[in-house]
């Protein structure tokens, strides 16, 4: 479970261009569910995912991951959590140009010290799973948007993370590919992973694979959403009981 208490994130603090991206968010997210953060551009969805994914630190407040407080951990531990626990699917794909699809997928596991051949085998399995193994030796800049997105997903899964974070994953895809992507997301959830998506695409937040849609606006949570299947935790949480 992920828990955020009184989270605030201010960018460029003390400067003329100071900007509050998140202001006082309290939130609990259950494991093995697909949660979507829905809201217009600039509402704070991406920042929220960054904070949950240990890519940025909140200005104030605390974040708990599996009941462990992670906000005050040194950078080294945050990196380790990022590597072991999270898989990221970025809006801009963020693949490294000039190297092959296979190398891109293997990249997050390089610092783990896993042998090259076993790592390659694992990466190839993932590419097979997403039906893109034929492109394994191609450079990423030669891929189409849909192919690049599947490579990004394969890369996100190479370290077998328990939480997958996807920021606007359908931004560069047409409706057909977006639906395909949601099918993949459903599979990830069915595999027992927690899936967090930031999106303002109806294909995403209206998908029946989604368990909960949280509406974000102006750095605040407008609507905490719902779980399609209520959990015992759901009713136990004072925050949930008051807002859902």
């Amino acid at each position: 479970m992920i828990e955020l208490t009184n989270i605030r994130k201010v960018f460029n603090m003390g400067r003329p261009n100071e900007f509050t991206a998140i202001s006082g968010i309290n939130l609990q997210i259950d494991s093995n569910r697909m949660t979507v953060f829905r809201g217009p551009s600039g509402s704070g969805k991406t920042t929220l995912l960054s904070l949950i994914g240990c890519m940025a630190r909140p200005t104030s407040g605390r974040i708990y991951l599996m009941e462990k407080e992670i906000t005050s951990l040194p950078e080294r531990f945050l990196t380790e959590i990022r590597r072991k626990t999270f898989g990221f699917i970025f809006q801009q794909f963020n693949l490294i140009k000039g190297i092959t699809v296979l190398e891109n997928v293997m990249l997050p596991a390089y610092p783990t010290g896993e042998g090259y051949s076993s790592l390659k085998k694992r990466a190839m399995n993932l590419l097979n799973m997403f039906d893109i193994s034929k492109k394994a030796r191609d450079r990423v800049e030669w891929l189409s948007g849909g192919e690049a997105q599947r490579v990004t997903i394969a890369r996100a899964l190479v370290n077998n993370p328990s939480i997958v974070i996807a920021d606007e994953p359908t931004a560069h895809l047409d409706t057909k590919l977006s639906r395909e992507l949601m099918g993949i997301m459903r599979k990830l959830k069915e595999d027992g992973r927690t899936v967090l998506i930031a999106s303002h695409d109806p294909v995403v937040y209206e998908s029946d694979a989604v368990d909960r849609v949280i509406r974000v606006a102006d750095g605040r949570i407008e609507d905490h959403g719902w779980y399609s299947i209520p959990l015992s935790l759901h009713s136990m949480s004072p925050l949930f009981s008051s807002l859902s």
Partner: protein
Amino acid sequence: MKTSIERQKNIIDFALSSLLRRKRKNAGLLVVYTLLVFALASVIFFSYAIKKEASIILQGSPEMIVQRTIAGRHDLIPVSYIDRIQKIRGVSSVKRRLWGYYYDPVVGANYTLIVPENFDAGVGNISIGEGVSRTRLVFEGDTMEFRTYDGKIIELTIKNILSSESEIISSDLLMISEADFRRLFGTPEDYAVDLTLSVRNPRELSTIAGKISEMMPDTRPILRDEILRTYDSVFNWRGGILVIILSGALLAFVIFAWDKASGLSLDERREIGILKAIGWETSDIIQMKFWEGIAISLTSFCSGIIFAYIHVFFTDAFLFEPVLKGWSVLYPHFKLVPFIDASQISTLFFLSVVPYTVATIIPSWRAATVDPDSVMR
């Protein structure tokens, strides 16, 4: 242990592929870097090897030379001085020497003429260095004409060509009999060019030199060590001139390398952000940049050193020959014995590889310490 080796292997693998992705930029850097190390290493190799060569040659030279000076200039010395010097306690032998320079207007070169102690070719014959033979196109059995001090022409027959092994000293050398030497230069019978002497106890050299100066104030004793020091300073000076010329190139390279290494492009910053976001630690990124820096600088350093070695010891340093070998027209075509001064190579290593690698790491470290959040936007 195995995990850590595999981790390093993976990081090195990615670092090398990163270099290959920016082929043109890195190839350009590699070439400039190699050229610079090559030029500096050539100067270092050459000046050190030639100094070493000179010192080995001078090991066989007399312990002390006594010259006569008049008005501060070297002049002929009376042979009668031999007896006076011989009487000084500690002196074991004193010998006279006849040597000089002959300007050949045909090739515009100065030859060094010496009268060897035991010249068995006889009067009317000479032995010549390979440089003279090569330039004048004269060989054994040919004759060479010389104009004497009073304008007469004498013809001397070439008995043999001096071997190339000793070319560093014999290239422009002519060995001549005493009679022919005196005929050529008009040197009186009771005069020599200088005197050489040996002593029983080398530790007494300076004492004996002092006694000679006292007894014969118009003489100047020169010790072998002083000659060695002169050679050292001559080649240090020449090497220094070249290093000064090259320092312009060095400076340009430093600016270029610093700019390349410290100015991370937007793409490189983005890449670092991505690597951080997908789970690379700051130390992993620094290690990757370290290997990138090492790959460039070490490859350039080693290539530069190897090319310089070939240039100096296999092609006679043909690029720097005019500056390093001096004023002689008959450049000796000698093969230098490879002498490498480890301390100078280490200095070159620390002045090239280390700063470049550090310049590569620092900006990457700065970029890697920021939140990877930037790649989300």
